C-alpha cells in the first residue's frame, strides 16, 4: 500500500506510523479530558458541556441496548468509542496517518473486547455455569457438538470486529489514494498543465469534476463511515457484553 499512499508528514524513525499516531490520539483525548475536567462546575460550560453531552449520548445508547445495569461498563465502551472515532477521523486529515487503518490497532481493540466480555460473563455467573451455557438448551448427546460450534463462533467475533473496522478504513483510503493519483500531477492535472489543447480542455474539466466529486461526495461519505464504524464497534461490544451477562439468567420470560 506504500506504492500509492503518501507517507504521513511526521514520522519517528524506527517506530511504525500507527504507533506514533496512536500516541497522538491518546494525547488528544487526554488533553481534552484534562481541559474539560480541570474546573468542574455544576452548570457546565465550554469543553465540559461538550464532553457531558457526548457521554450522555453514550449513556443513552447503553440504556437502550443493555438496560440500566449496563452503565457499569461505560468506561470501557466510551473509551473504545472515542478512541476509534478519533482514530478514524484523524486518518481523514491529509498528512496524518490513522491508527485504525492498521490491522494491529484494530486487532488490539477487538482482543480487549473479547477478553472483557468473557471476563464480565464469567465474573457475573461463575466460570462453570458460564461455560455450561455455551452448549445451549439441547439434548445431552448434542452438547459436545454445540459446545464446539459455539466456541468457534465466539472465536470468530474478534476476527470479524478486527476485519470490519480495518477493511472499511483501508478500503476508503485506497479509494481516496487512487482518485488522488488519477487527479494529481501524474494524471489529469498534469495533463491539463502540459499545454496541449486537448489536455487543457479534458484534463481541466476532468480534474475539476474529480475535485468536486472528492470534496462533495467522498469526504462526507468517509466521515459518515468513520462515525458509523465507531458506532457499530461500540454497539457490537454492548451486544456481546449483554449476551454474556444475560445468558445465565434462568428466567427468560421476564416482563
Amino acid at each position, binding site marked *: 500500500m506504500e*506504492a500509492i499512499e503518501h507517507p504521513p508528514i511526521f514520522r519517528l524513525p524506527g517506530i511504525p506510523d500507527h504507533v506514533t499516531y496512536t500516541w497522538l490520539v491518546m494525547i488528544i483525548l487526554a488533553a481534552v479530558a484534562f481541559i474539560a475536567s480541570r474546573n468542574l462546575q455544576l452548570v457546565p460550560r465550554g469543553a465540559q458541556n461538550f464532553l457531558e453531552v457526548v457521554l450522555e449520548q453514550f449513556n443513552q445508547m447503553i440504556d437502550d441496548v443493555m438496560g440500566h445495569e449496563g452503565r457499569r461498563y461505560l468506561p470501557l465502551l466510551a473509551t473504545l468509542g472515542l478512541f476509534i472515532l478519533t482514530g478514524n477521523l484523524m486518518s481523514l486529515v491529509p498528512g496524518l496517518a490513522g491508527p485504525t487503518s492498521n490491522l494491529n490497532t484494530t486487532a488490539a481493540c477487538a482482543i480487549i473486547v473479547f477478553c472483557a466480555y468473557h471476563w464480565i460473563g464469567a465474573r457475573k455467573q461463575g466460570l462453570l455455569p458460564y461455560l455450561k451455557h455455551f452448549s445451549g438448551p439441547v439434548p445431552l448427546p448434542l452438547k459436545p457438538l454445540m459446545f464446539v460450534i459455539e466456541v468457534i463462533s465466539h472465536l470468530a467475533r474478534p476476527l470479524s470486529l478486527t*476485519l*470490519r473496522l*480495518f*477493511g*472499511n478504513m483501508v*478500503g476508503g483510503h*485506497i479509494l481516496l489514494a487512487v482518485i488522488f493519483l488519477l487527479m494529481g500531477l501524474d494524471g489529469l492535472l498534469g495533463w491539463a498543465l502540459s499545454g496541449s489543447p486537448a489536455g487543457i480542455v479534458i484534463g481541466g474539466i476532468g480534474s475539476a469534476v474529480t475535485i468536486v466529486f472528492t470534496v462533495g461526495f467522498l469526504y462526507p461519505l468517509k466521515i459518515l463511515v468513520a462515525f458509523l464504524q465507531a458506532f*457499530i464497534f461500540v*454497539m457490537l461490544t454492548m451486544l456481546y457484553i449483554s449476551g454474556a451477562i444475560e445468558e445465565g439468567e434462568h428466567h427468560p420470560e421476564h416482563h
Partner: protein
Amino acid sequence: MRRSLILGILAVLTVPTAAMAAEGGTGGWIGPFAVIAAGIGMAIAAGLCGLGQGRAVASAVDAMARQPGAAARIQTAMIIGLALIESLAIYTLVIALILLFVKGINFS
C-alpha cells in the same frame, strides 16, 4: 460455440503466463492471476452484498412505514444487520488486499 468461448478465455488467461515464461519467469506465474482473482472476487462480493443489503433495507423501511413509533429501534437493528452483512464483503476486500499487496506469500 461454448467450447470455443472457454478455450478463448483460457487462452487469454494463459497469456500472462506465457509472457512471464518468456521473460524468464522470475516473478512466478501466480502474480497476474492474483490480480484477476482480486478483481473478480471483489466484484462478486460487492454485487451480492448489495443484493443482501438491499433486501435488509427494504424490509426495514417497510417496517418503519408500518410502525413509525418503533422506527428508532428498527433503525438500530438495521444498522447492526447491515454491518454484519457488509463485513462479509469486507472479508473479500481483505483477501483481495492480501493478494495484491502482501509480498511475503510465496507465489511460486
